[in-house]
Structure formats: structure tokens, C-alpha cells
């Protein structure tokens, strides 16, 4: 995404309400810095994330999409993140098959106690996406201002 003529990666992070969002909160409470280009969208569970949401984010100008959920086995709804794991494995593999850079998509398990992991993950992911440059392969020109 271009901001004042300069490229700044726009990262959309889907965070589950019970673990990862709380993890992000903890990162904030602990004054751990992570890039301001990360936009968090809170979802009830990581399995709420429809594959469509991810494509939609890319359409609207995201350069990277990351999905964060509870660790497998710790899902608030018992099994939601297991479904996420299967869906995202297939979807990301498909996106890679279509030639969309695999570094632009990621799934990370972050618990409510892992504020430091949340910040570190976001720093690392933003850096990786920044290195790739703008998302050209899944962009929708109609959505560019």
C-alpha cells in the first residue's frame, strides 16, 4: 500500500477473541512494539475466517494476511482451530499454486499469555512482506484510490 508516495506494507491480522486478541492486548500492556501497519480484525474464533475474507483483504489492498488463533487443543470452542488448520493449509497451498507469493499468507498460534510472541510474529511477518513489495498479483485496481 502506498502512503504519501512511499510503500508501507498493509497487514491484515485476523485474531481470535479468546487467545490471540488477548495476546495482542498483552503485547500492548507490556509496551511491546509491533508495526502500526498491522490492522487487527477480531473474530470469535479463527475458524470464523472464511477463505473469502482473505481474498477480500487482498482485494482491498492488503499486502499480507495473517490468521492467529489459539494453539491446537486450546480452542475455546474445542475444535474450531483444527478446522482452520485444514482449510488454511489447502487455501494457502492453492494460492501458492496460482503463483501468489507464499510469504504473504501465514497462520500462527498465539495464546493469551504470549504477548511477546505476538509482537515478534508481527514484526517478522511485516518485514517479510515488506521485502516482497506491493501485492500486485491479487490486487483489484478498482479498489485503488
Amino acid at each position, binding site marked *: 500500500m502506498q502512503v504519501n508516495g512511499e510503500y508501507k506494507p498493509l497487514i491484515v491480522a485476523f485474531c481470535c477473541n479468546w487467545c490471540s486478541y488477548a495476546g495482542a492486548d498483552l503485547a500492548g500492556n507490556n509496551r511491546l512494539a509491533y508495526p502500526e501497519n498491522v490492522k487487527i480484525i477480531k473474530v470469535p474464533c479463527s475458524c470464523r475466517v472464511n*477463505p*473469502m475474507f482473505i*481474498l477480500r483483504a*487482498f*482485494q482491498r489492498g492488503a499486502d499480507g494476511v495473517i490468521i492467529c488463533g489459539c494453539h*491446537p*487443543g486450546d480452542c475455546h470452542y474445542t*475444535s474450531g482451530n*483444527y*478446522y482452520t*488448520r*485444514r*482449510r*488454511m*493449509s*489447502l*487455501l*494457502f*497451498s*492453492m*494460492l*501458492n*499454486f*496460482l*503463483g*501468489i*507469493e*507464499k510469504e504473504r*499468507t*501465514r*497462520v500462527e498460534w498465539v495464546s493469551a499469555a504470549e504477548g511477546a510472541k505476538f509482537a515478534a510474529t508481527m514484526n517478522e511477518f511485516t518485514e517479510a512482506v515488506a521485502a516482497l513489495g506491493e501485492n500486485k*498479483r*491479487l*490486487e*483489484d*485496481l*478498482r479498489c485503488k484510490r
Partner: protein
Amino acid sequence: MQKITADMLIEKAVSLLEAGTISRVLGWKKGEFDYDVTPYVFADAESLKKDFVFDDFCGANFSKYLVAETRKAEGKVLVFLKPCDTYSFNQLLTEHRFDREAVYAVGIPCEGMADINKIKEITGDGISSLTSKGDKIVVDTIYDGEKEVDFASVLAERCVSCKSKKHVAYDELMGDEGDITDSARFDEVAQLEAMTEDERFAFWQSQLSKCIRCNACRDICPACTCEKCVFENPESPVENKAISDSFEEKMFHIIRAFHVAGRCTDCGECSRVCPQNIPLHLLNRKFIKDINSFYGEYQAGAEVGSRAPLVDYTTEDIEPGEAVMKGEGENA
């Protein structure tokens, strides 16, 4: 050439009609040309004798038609199923899409179906008639007269890598029971996986940009049978036939393939009906290949009641990051 002839099928259908076992027949009707055969519901012996055909161009998979047809009237519908159609038939039964009791399924052997586009590549346009003769097809064209093509060389892509000659569902079987074939159906997918990211992107960009969004791939897909769908809604903007941006066709095809992931039986109808000849089955096969390699071999429709991989899980499943590497052909 097919081992079984239209006459044999008509005879079978007529005898079942007369016995009162069935009330109508779902079969192939001769179209305007020899190669455009249309699915049709025959209600009596006369219409069967007049219009029913079965030849090398009867590719249509009837399973999906049963969903609407079984609800229309009382009595059983006779349906002729080729081996690959029986997988879709089972898959639809698994999903409770039609009443098994309302159908009388007759399994028929299939020698593979011809692809008219491959024939046209050899003979050129202007085909006036097609006749099967042994392992040749005699093509009459209005420009150059008669020509002969090898049946094997014009076999549809999905039939070249046929996955099964075995019927997995039927009430009655005509001809011999075949076997599950050891096909090389994932070779093309593997070739694409072996390419670099840029090459893959260029390949799909060039293929998908041909899409005219006619929605034929969705309409024909036997795994795609929701009655309330955004594509059935004329008020919805996705009904727009024109593509205004390259993003849209990618999104459409990714989501179309994802919706049937784990339920696609690999019947290849999507590619058959595509007027732009986009190899859409490759997207579905990529999902099947990944499912096989991540979660163990799974063939949708092989048995009624099996649990599709995407509505199932184990605690030991592969992580998405590793999966992407494995999907690329690397052993993570």
C-alpha cells in the same frame, strides 16, 4: 468406440418402462450436430426410439440432474451412469441431495469420451457428421470431405487419465465390471508445481483471463447443488457477466474450487463445458492432490457416507506453513 450401443440402452429402457419399474428416462438426446448431445428426459418408448443416442460424445454426467428431476413427478427415474458418474451419484447421496428410492441406476461401461475440440484441431471446422468405426472416428466436413481420426488421439483429457472403470453404485449393470485404473491424473498438477512462482502466475493469468464468467463450470458441477446461491440471484452483482478486473476471475475460480474441495469427485465436467477451454479441473485436482498428501488418500464418492476431509480433523494435522511447502512438491 463404445462397447455398448444406443439400441441396447433403448431396449433396456423400453423394457423397464413397459414393466412399470420406471416412469421416465434421463438420457442423451441428439442435438443439432452429432457432437452436441443434450441431456433430456424421455417419457415414452417412441421418443426414446426417435431421439435417444449413445456414442463417443455422451460425456454429460447425469448425477446432478437427478436432484431436480426426482422431485418433479412420481415414479422412478432411470438414469444411465458411466463409471465416473457413479462417484458423483454417491457423493450426492452422501449429502442427501436426492432420494435413492426415486432412482433406478443402470451402470454402463465407458471407453472414454471424445473431445470435439481435439477433432476440430485435426480436421478443421465445418463438421457435418461423425461416425464411430472401430478405433477410428469418420469425420465428414463440408470443406474437405471425409477424414478419419484415431479415437485414442481425440480422447478427452479427463478420459486419458481416467481414474476408474469401476462402477461404485448401480441397481443393474450392463456389460462387465471394470477396475479402478492406475492413472497419471496428477502429473499435470505436479508439472505446474515444479515451475517457479512467476511461471505459475503467468500460466494461470493467461488461462483465467480467458474466462467470460458464463458460470457454466458452476452450473454443471455435480458437487455444487445448493438451491440458494448467490449465482442464482439476479439481484446480486456477481451475476454480472463482464469481468471488470483480473482480480475477479481469480477470486471466482479460487472460491469455486474451494467450495467443492474434498467433495469434488474429479469428474472433469467443469473443463468439458468451459467454452474458453480453461483447464479448470487442474484447480480441483490440486485440492485433491493436497488432500491426499496431507490427510491421506481420499476419493470423494467412493462410498456413501464417507466424511469429507474438510469437515473432519485430527489433532496431528500438518501445519499450514509446512503444508504450503509440501504442496509445492518439497518434503517438509
